[in-house]
Structure formats: C-alpha cells, structure tokens
C-alpha cells in the first residue's frame, strides 16, 4: 500500500519542545494517532507534516511531496488536498461560521456560488451548527470554533487530514461532532494523522495509535 505520510528520521527543536529521530509511515486511507503527554512536542511533529515548520534534520513526505525541500507555492498547492486543523482552529474572527466554511471553496473557485453555499450549509447542518451559522466566529465558544475549523478543513474534501490535539477545547457535544466527522473521513478513505494527549479519544478517531512515553524520540 502507498504511504500518504512518510516521516524519516525527523528531528526538530523549538524552545523546550522537540522531537528527535522520529520515523513514521501512514498508509493511504489509514488513520493514525500519535499519543503522549508532551503535546507541544507532538504538535511540532504534525506541523512538520503540514509544511508549517521545516525539520532541523530528516525528511517528511506528504502525498508524494517532499516538504523539506518544497517551496512556498508548492506547499500552498499541496494544501488544497491536505486539510489541517490546529489546536484553536484559527477561524477568521470577523467572519461568520458560514463564511469561514465557504472561504476555501470560494478562494479556490472549484464550485459555482450556489453549490458552495449548498455544500457549506450541508456541512454545518450535519454538525448541528446551522442555527449559529451566521454568528461571527469571535462571538462563539472555543468548542464551536474548533468544530467549524474541522468543517472548513474538510470542505475541500482533502485526501489527507492532519489534526493537532483534537480533544482540546471540546466538551462531550463537540467530541460527538468530531467523532462523526472522522467517521465520514474514514468511510471516504481519507488518510488521517492526529496527535493527542487523550488516548481514549484518539483511539475512537483512528485505526492505529502510537504512544510516546518519555519525550518524543
């Protein structure tokens, strides 16, 4: 089976957080969680896979692209097929939930406006967020913002989804929404890599869990 994510002897240090000599392979359609207490270090790992950080040493390949050498334009193009959800979501605060979910579709112009509106409305409806779709992101609880960030990341129907700490900021309702999203992603054969400190929740989202016990090595 082809590898969607291939990490080879990755080392990166940022402040007190760091990962050293990590190798990992996530096959196409597989969902993998890297679980451990040192979430800042695990976040570095997933950020390297998203091309947001360059490793100090080692190599990261995602969807066949070597991120260690890819230029900015290649990374921007790659991210149309690689979704990413950060710990806080990073929704645009001055836009409504609906506009946030529609944003990548409207920017990349894959669909006509009516189809974009329909797709965003469908995603918000499935997540039970329709009632709050027109509220500005900055006025909403962090949990809803995070769920909407998930919806925004999957709006472009990515082949790979990378998630920093999915359990963070989520209460039971938010966790249910995220579980449902992951269930749909698995059904569609999307490759998923998550890092989390909540082993049980990570196990619900993924097929395989790798536990890091003492530092990320």
């Amino acid at each position: 089976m082809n590898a969607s994510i291939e990490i080879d002897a990755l080392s990166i240090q940022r402040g007190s957080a760091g990962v050293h000599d990590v190798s990992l392979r996530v096959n196409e359609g597989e969902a993998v969680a890297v679980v451990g207490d040192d979430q800042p270090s695990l976040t570095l790992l997933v950020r390297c896979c998203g091309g947001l950080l360059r490793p100090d040493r080692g190599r990261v390949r995602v969807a066949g692209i070597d991120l260690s050498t890819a230029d900015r334009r290649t990374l921007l193009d790659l991210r149309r097929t690689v979704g990413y959800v950060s710990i806080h979501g990073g929704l645009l605060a001055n836009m409504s939930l609906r506009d946030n979910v529609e944003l990548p579709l409207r920017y990349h112009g894959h669909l006509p406006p009516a189809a974009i509106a329909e797709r965003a409305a469908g995603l918000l409806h499935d997540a039970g967020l329709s009632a709050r779709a027109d509220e500005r992101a900055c006025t909403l609880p962090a949990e809803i913002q995070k769920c909407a960030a998930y919806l925004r990341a999957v709006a472009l129907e990515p082949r790979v989804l990378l998630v920093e700490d999915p359990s963070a900021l989520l209460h039971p309702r938010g966790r249910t929404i995220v579980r449902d999203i992951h269930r749909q992603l698995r059904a569609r054969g999307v490759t998923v890599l998550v890092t989390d400190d909540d082993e049980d929740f990570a196990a619900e989202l993924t097929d395989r869990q790798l536990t890091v016990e003492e530092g990320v090595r």
Partner: protein
Amino acid sequence: MLRASGRWLLAEIRRLVSYSALTVLVAASLLRRPTEGHGIVRTQIARQVVFSAWDAVPMVVFIAGLLSVSLVALAATFMPSLEATSVLGRVVALVLVRELAPLMTAILVILRSSGAVAVELGYMSWRGEIEALETLGIDPIKFVLLPRFVGLTAATVGMNLLFCAAAVGAGLLTAQTFGITSSLSVFRHNLGTMLLPSDVVIAFVKSLLFGGVVAAVSCYHGLSVRDDLTEVPRRASRALVEALSWCTVIGVAITLITL
C-alpha cells in the same frame, strides 16, 4: 554615541528593506496567478476601500474646508487685497495641493486606518488566522495584504483629490466673504494660471507613495506579532509613529528634489 547612531541607522535601513520587500511581495502577488481567488480578494479590497476612504469622506471635507478657510483668511488679513488676489492661486497650489493635501490625507489615513490595520493583523497573527489561511492553500499575501495595500493606497490618493477639491471650494467661499475675489471665474482664472501640471503630478506621486508606505508599515508591524498579545498595542503604536515619520521624510525629499 557614534556606535549608538550607527546601530540606529542600521536598524532603520533593515526596516526599510523589510518594508520594501513586503511591498514587492504584494506587487508580485498581483501578477502571479491573477485569477486565483479573484472574486473574494476583490470583495476584501472593496471592504478596505470603504473603511479607509468612503467612511472618511465627511472628515476629510470638514478638515480640508477648515484649513482652507484659515489659509485664505490669513492671506486676506496680512496681504493687501490686490496683491492677495494675484498670489492667492499660487499659494493655494503650492501650500495646499503640493504640500498640505498629500500630507494631511496621509495623516488622516494613518489615524483612521494604520493603527486599525496593525491591530487587526496583529490579532490575526496571534490567533493563528494567518497560518490557518496557509493551511487552506490560501495565499495570505493575496488574501490579507493585497486588499490592505490597494485599499490604503486608493484611499490616500482618492482622499487627496477630495481634500484638494474641498479646500479649493472652501477657499473660494472664504475669498468671496473677505472680498478678495469677486467671482468664481476670477478665482478659477487665478488658480488655473497658478496651478501647474507638475503640481498635480507631484501631489499624485506623493499620495501614491504615502499610501504604499502607510500600508507597508502597518502590515509589517501587524504581522510581526507572534505569541505575545501585549505586543499588539505596542506594534500599533509603532506603526502610527513610523508611518507618519516616513511620510514626512518622503514628502520633504520629494519637495527638495522637485524644487
């Protein structure tokens, strides 16, 4: 003392290079894949123009009018009326159109928008919104910076034109009130002979550069915010002061070059 001056100068040069690099990146984004995200980027540009220019129209008209009134009233008070009539057009052209209007409009844009843009980008940067855009394959230079550059520059140029028109209109009314000029045609004749095409070109170039400088400085300081939220007001304040300083320096430089 010498070492401190050298350090200060090097820091200023480094910052100037950063502002220039940011401007080049934004200009290049216009040429690179021009159709990418064009609809949504156009909307963002329109919003910025409305905020920076359209909403400021009453304030610009008000300030331009008041300044013109005081300028013409001073001329009327301190110059014999015949002499005043003949030089008033040139005074308006030189002081208002070439010098005061571009700098005043730049100051108004800085006060209204520079701090706002720096704060907005600072919060976006701190909240991880800029990075989140990149994760969606959205080019932040095109989606975030380009609209602010275009909006602020268009606002500065447009408001400069409006400022001149309002100042000339108010100047005419004041001149008639003080009995310096008898009619619109006389005033227009004076202004027409005294306002040279080079004055208009210089004023346009100045306001264009001021707009670019305000945008570059505001965006640079906004994007410089990283993990510390308390940096946001500090950066906004620096953006205001630096934008004003650079506009003054550039304005004086252009005036001296074009004497």
